[in-house]
């Protein structure tokens, strides 16, 4: 102890009492932080691992889709939904397979897969797309009420014009001209309200504007 002067001895003693009082708590906190970090890393690793496996299945699904193999596509999409429901691949698989089913004339299966994606996808944009596509399938099945119900709930602003157009198509299909006209008008208004377009996709919005305009005019009074 002689190595320390008085002031230092005092400080040491102070430190010891402090450690005595708080030491356990400090160790516990450090331990919890370390465990939480390790857990976080582990969780990330697990997610990545799931995604990697799902990716392989999805690639098979893409191949099946390219070959228009509806049955195989359905099986692989089912596998993604069952085994990897928390990955982005599950919803992507459901959407892709639904398109293959629709092309093959199997609306029923497409409905089920789109409904799953609309309810469970973790990506809000994919949920909106799934609802839109679900409504399209239901429209062709003449289930107008169900189709409108799929479109319930506000989508992201950017998808709003497509939602309104789809509502207009549904109303027009069941002969409600005034409602359809209002929907198309609202679709145009929402498209025009979107911020000026940027990026390579900018060029496509004018043709879409004209599509909506034609549908509106065909309902009788244009603007």
């Amino acid at each position, binding site marked *: 102890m002689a190595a320390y002067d008085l002031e230092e001895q005092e400080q040491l003693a102070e430190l010891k009492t402090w450690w005595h009082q708080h030491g356990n708590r400090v160790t516990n906190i*450090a331990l919890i*932080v370390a465990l939480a*970090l390790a857990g976080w890393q582990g969780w990330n690793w697990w997610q*990545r691992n799931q*995604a990697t496996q799902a*990716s*392989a299945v*999805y*690639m098979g699904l*893409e*191949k099946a889709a390219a*070959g228009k193999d509806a049955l195989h596509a359905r099986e692989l999409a089912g596998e993604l939904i069952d085994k990897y429901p928390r*990955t*982005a*691949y599950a919803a*992507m698989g459901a*959407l*892709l397979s639904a*398109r293959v089913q*629709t092309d093959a004339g199997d609306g029923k299966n497409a409905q089920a897969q*789109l409904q799953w994606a609309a309810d469970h996808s973790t*990506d*809000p*944009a994919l949920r909106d797309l799934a609802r839109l*596509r679900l409504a*399209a*399938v239901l*429209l*062709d099945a003449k289930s107008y009420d169900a189709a409108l119900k799929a479109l319930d709930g506000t989508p*992201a*602003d*950017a*998808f709003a*014009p*497509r939602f309104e157009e*789809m509502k207009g*198509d549904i109303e*027009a*299909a069941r002969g409600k001209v005034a409602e359809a006209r209002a929907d198309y008008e609202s679709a145009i208004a929402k498209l025009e309200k*979107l*911020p000026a*377009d*940027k*990026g*390579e*996709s*900018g060029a*496509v*919005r004018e*043709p*879409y504007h004209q*599509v909506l305009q*034609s*549908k509106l*005019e*065909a309902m*009788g*009074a*244009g*603007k």
Partner: protein
Amino acid sequence: MFDFVRNNRRIVQVVLVAITLPFAFWGVDSYVRNASGGDDVARVGDSRISHQEFLQALQAQQERLRSSMGGRPVPQEMLDAPELREAVINGLIDQHLISLHATKSKLSVTEQQLAQFLASVPALQQDGKFSRERYEAVVAAQNMSIPAFEAQLRQNLTLQQSMGVVALPIVATDSARRWVAAELEEREVTDFVLHPEQFLAQVKLGTDAAKTFYDTNRKQFELPQMARVEYLVLSRAALGEQAKVSEEDISAWYKSHIDQYAAPEERRASHILIQADKSAPEAAVKAAQTKAEALLAELKKNPKEFAALARQNSQDPGSATHGGDLDWFRRGAMVKPFEDAVFSLKEGEISNLVRSDFGFHIILLTGIKPAHTQPLEAVRDQIAAELRDQVAAKKYAEMAEGFGNTVYEQADSLQPAADKFKLKIERSDWIAPQGAAPGPLANPKLRAAIFTDDAIKEHRNTSAIDIGNDTQVAARVVDYKPAAIRPFDEVKAAIEQKLARDEAVKLTRKAGEEQLARLSKGDAISLAWGKARNVPRMGVRDLAPDALRAIFRVDARKLPAYAGTALPDGGYALYRISLIKPWDGKEDDPRAKMLRQQYERVTAGEEVAAWLATLRQRYPVEINTKALAEK
């Protein structure tokens, strides 16, 4: 310092832990990544678009612009336009957004998937199998290393995964049909056109109208400064024309480059392809083979029918329309099994089935050009030109610097340089700083040099300006007119004519709109309506988009309905819609088919655009406008 450490040990410890912990879990990377480049053009979430990446994309886009103009020169203003830069940066931002979104969604492509993809690319195959050498050669040809190439490829594949499903909409048959029906709806229309000429007589211009216009629009009547110049052109091309080449030189060159004039054997063949992709299911391959065998049997009986059968059956769209003809080709141009078959056939002979990665081929050999060497006579002119150009290049290199020095050192005349280099002094007519100019004077750098105080006031030669193509030009101003404004008397008549016409156009529109209002109210006005014709909403070639819109926007539930539109030539057209013909609903109408596809395309485009817009909202995007404008 040490006192601080000793007195605040606890703080120091906490700080130390805070520094070391990230190391333990995330590595050094988490520190280095935050070091900013400073001049990034944009940030997308936590990824950056560097100035270099931006410039590369810009150059690629400019290159695309140039090739889309088909060899015609693209104006520099177009290449430098800020809009182009904006389009390029927004395209890059879209790419970064998709790739960032793919990362956040934990999309990934494994080694194995990458290998699978590479194995399926025909360009990387040899004898139907993935070839490592070929792969390395292809990557090296793009000036990339294998790891960099694979990283980029992997990114592209995840990008495709992420966007692929968005770009494949499900379009309700009913939605598409509704639009097709709208586009194919026809309206029976007659028109009546008012022309401004009819209203000229009613126009009364104030006495000083022309003068007022002249005073307020002086800029329009400015004449630019003009100069007449004499100039000298030193060019490699002209030197080449003067150069003399001896007969011995030509034959010596021919002998030493004989392999350039030897042409390998060429063959011409026709084929019928029945597609069967390498990766196609076995049943499909079998079906293709059966079909191909049936065709082959038919051809063995009737070899003359080859072209007709190819036209009907070949699944190679490029050649099928030409009866299967592939034109002349050499070894190395076709896939291996195909080539082997072609080069083992006799002229007029039909092959057995040949299996390639594309499918089953039946090949007819239609011609053989044996290997041959061009004689000296045939290539003499070509060689002479080549040799003359070599001489010219050497001479030009020797003379270029001296030329520049002479026109600079003896700046009060072009004569010394003309004498020294045996050039002829040319004279120009009046030229302005902008606009058209003949020959080398069209070069903007040269023109800028001519219109300087040095050349105009000091009467000095311009320096020798390199105008490209190994050509230098020096000029000197011999005559000069400063900028001026045309006198009022000279332009008065033209102004009055213009003002009168403007006024007549206004009167035309007003009259047209009045008549339209009365017609729409139901007033009976007798007009000399033209011949009725049917116009579909999708448009016809000779009807302007404005007119089409006017005709179809008007409420036509009560007929006749009336519409009107101002015409680009100043006239005003009135339209009477007398009948609406809905689409007959015949799905086999080729227009209906085309429109259905168009609807799906537009829908897909809209959904992708909307998706990208949501990504832009989800991840912060920041554009550095200063760095964007930088060269």
